[in-house]
């Protein structure tokens, strides 16, 4: 079984397991794998999950102060905490801002990159390869490398504290262009030749042939961009104020606001769980196209 098949097969296997029909069989197979291997793997995975499990448990408690492992039992304050964080302390605003930023970046990057890749792959024009390299080379220029001038530029444009500031600078994407190009190069040339013979134009070809043929990759790329945008921290921190601030930075504000009372930690963990949720849900839901896309990126 390939990696992907295995993952996709999880629900079936879970159902099989729950139905109990093959429990004996499963035990035998567990033994075949080696119980020690499973024990080791389970502990390592648990180690990875432990911090977040703690965060989830604490977010259900009234007081966040637990000073020992014995205190790690869910409390009854779940609704109150999430309500307080989201509504009273207005954490929903940060979530919304992050959502807007990430969505705009996803859509913007996809549109802008699809157009560029259409030209890079399907046009016979001079200097095309140089333009492609020019786009790829932006990989060498993460925010910290151009931090100060970018700050001054965006401020100079009067964009500070606008959605433009946390979206437009992200629209050019070497990674997206690269992955889409690799994918389009795997589509047989005869398809576009056939379209050309019929007089189907480039945009119609993109819209009716390339995009429908690339659904999986586009979903995978979207998840990658979403996670990337959602996890941006430094740039939003410096370029937008509290009104437009994103969830990750908002967590700090939440801590500050909540610190007055003794529930600070429960609320901070509530915020943390909330901030983790959207990218995590996307990852779990779209793991198949995501892994497919990653396998292209490595090429």
């Amino acid at each position: 079984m390939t990696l992907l098949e295995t993952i996709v097969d999880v629900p079936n296997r879970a159902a099989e397991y729950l139905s109990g029909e093959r429990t004996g069989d499963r035990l035998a197979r567990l033994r075949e794998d080696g119980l020690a291997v499973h024990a080791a793997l389970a502990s390592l995975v648990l180690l990875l999950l432990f911090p977040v499990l703690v965060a989830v448990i604490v977010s259900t408690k009234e007081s966040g102060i637990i000073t020992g492992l014995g205190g790690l039992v869910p409390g009854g304050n779940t609704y109150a905490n999430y309500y307080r964080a989201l509504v009273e302390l207005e954490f929903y605003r940060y979530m919304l801002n992050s959502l807007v930023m990430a969505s705009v970046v996803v859509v913007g990057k996809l549109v802008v990159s699809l157009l560029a890749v259409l030209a890079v792959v399907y046009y016979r024009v001079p200097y095309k390869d140089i333009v492609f390299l020019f786009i790829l080379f932006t990989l060498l220029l993460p925010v910290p490398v151009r931090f100060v001038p970018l700050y001054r530029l965006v401020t100079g444009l009067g964009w500070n504290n606008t959605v433009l500031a946390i979206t437009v600078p992200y629209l050019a994407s070497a990674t997206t262009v690269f992955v889409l190009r690799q994918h389009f190069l795997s589509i047989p040339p005869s398809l576009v030749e056939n379209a050309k013979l019929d007089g189907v134009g480039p945009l119609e070809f993109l819209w009716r042939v390339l995009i429908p043929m690339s659904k999986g990759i586009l979903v995978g790329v979207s998840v990658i961009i979403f996670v990337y945008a959602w996890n941006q921290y430094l740039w939003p921190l410096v370029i937008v104020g509290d009104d437009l601030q994103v969830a990750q930075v908002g967590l700090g504000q939440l801590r500050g606001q909540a610190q007055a009372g003794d529930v600070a930690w429960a609320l901070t963990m509530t915020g943390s769980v909330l901030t983790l949720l959207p990218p995590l849900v996307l990852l779990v839901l779209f793991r198949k196209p995501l892994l497919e896309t990653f396998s292209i990126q490595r090429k």
Partner: protein
Amino acid sequence: MATREVFESRWQAAALLLPTVLVSIVFLYAPAVRAFELSLFEVGFGTGEADFVGLENYRTLLTSSEYHLSVLLTVLFAVAVVVGVMSFSLVVSFLIHEVEVGKGLYLVSAIWPYALPPAVAGFVFFFLLHPDLGVLTRPIERFGVDVDWFSSGPQAFALITVVAVWKQVGYNVIFMSASMNNIPGSLTETARLDGVGRLRRLLWVYAPIMSPTLAFLAVMNTIYAFFGTFAFIDVMTQGGPAGATNILIFDLYRDALQNFEFGVASAKSVVLFLIVGGLMYVQFRVTEKHAYYGG
């Protein structure tokens, strides 16, 4: 000679490329060039007036023991993160590769930190290991360690390394698992028939075949250690105590937005660029050299 390049209109191609190229120039290339330019100036606080000072800012960096410490810390940090995350991920990926039952579940449980926002990672660990209130503080202190990373530099450094490793495991497992899955089953079977044990199979059969992926990950992890770890520092240690976690990117941020030393900060940007550029170059060369391995 079949070709995909069936469209020939130059202005159409230019129009399609325009958005990406425009954003690249305005928000990526121009600021990068400007950073280089700014690094040659001393920029007045508040006024924004710039005096040309040549390489003075670089000389400042060369002679600043604080900056030297920051460079040293960052290199140590990067090495610790790369080694830590790659060994942990290699073991996890290998064990997942070895089992049949529950494979998919294990995999999802191992790759999820890819989606983890860094600030969340920072806050959760801040809470877990808070010197007074942390859930894990008491259990750890039972082993005779005094958890005190608010004032102990080495502890703070260790803490951000652990957090940085934790967050990056998912990304590594994604690529390592895919790479291991590409190893022909016949190789595994041959090794098994020869009675090669698990550990030796991992180190002497799998790892060499996976070397292009491992090289790729080593570079991506280094870049991550340099640039992707700002949030941990900002949330947990603010570069302290006494500069013990003041890695380059945080140092740069402070110079620019707390001390408003735009000139020096730009010089630091240029140094960072050279480091990324060097790493990318190394990756390119290593990948090229190992291209014949495939996978």
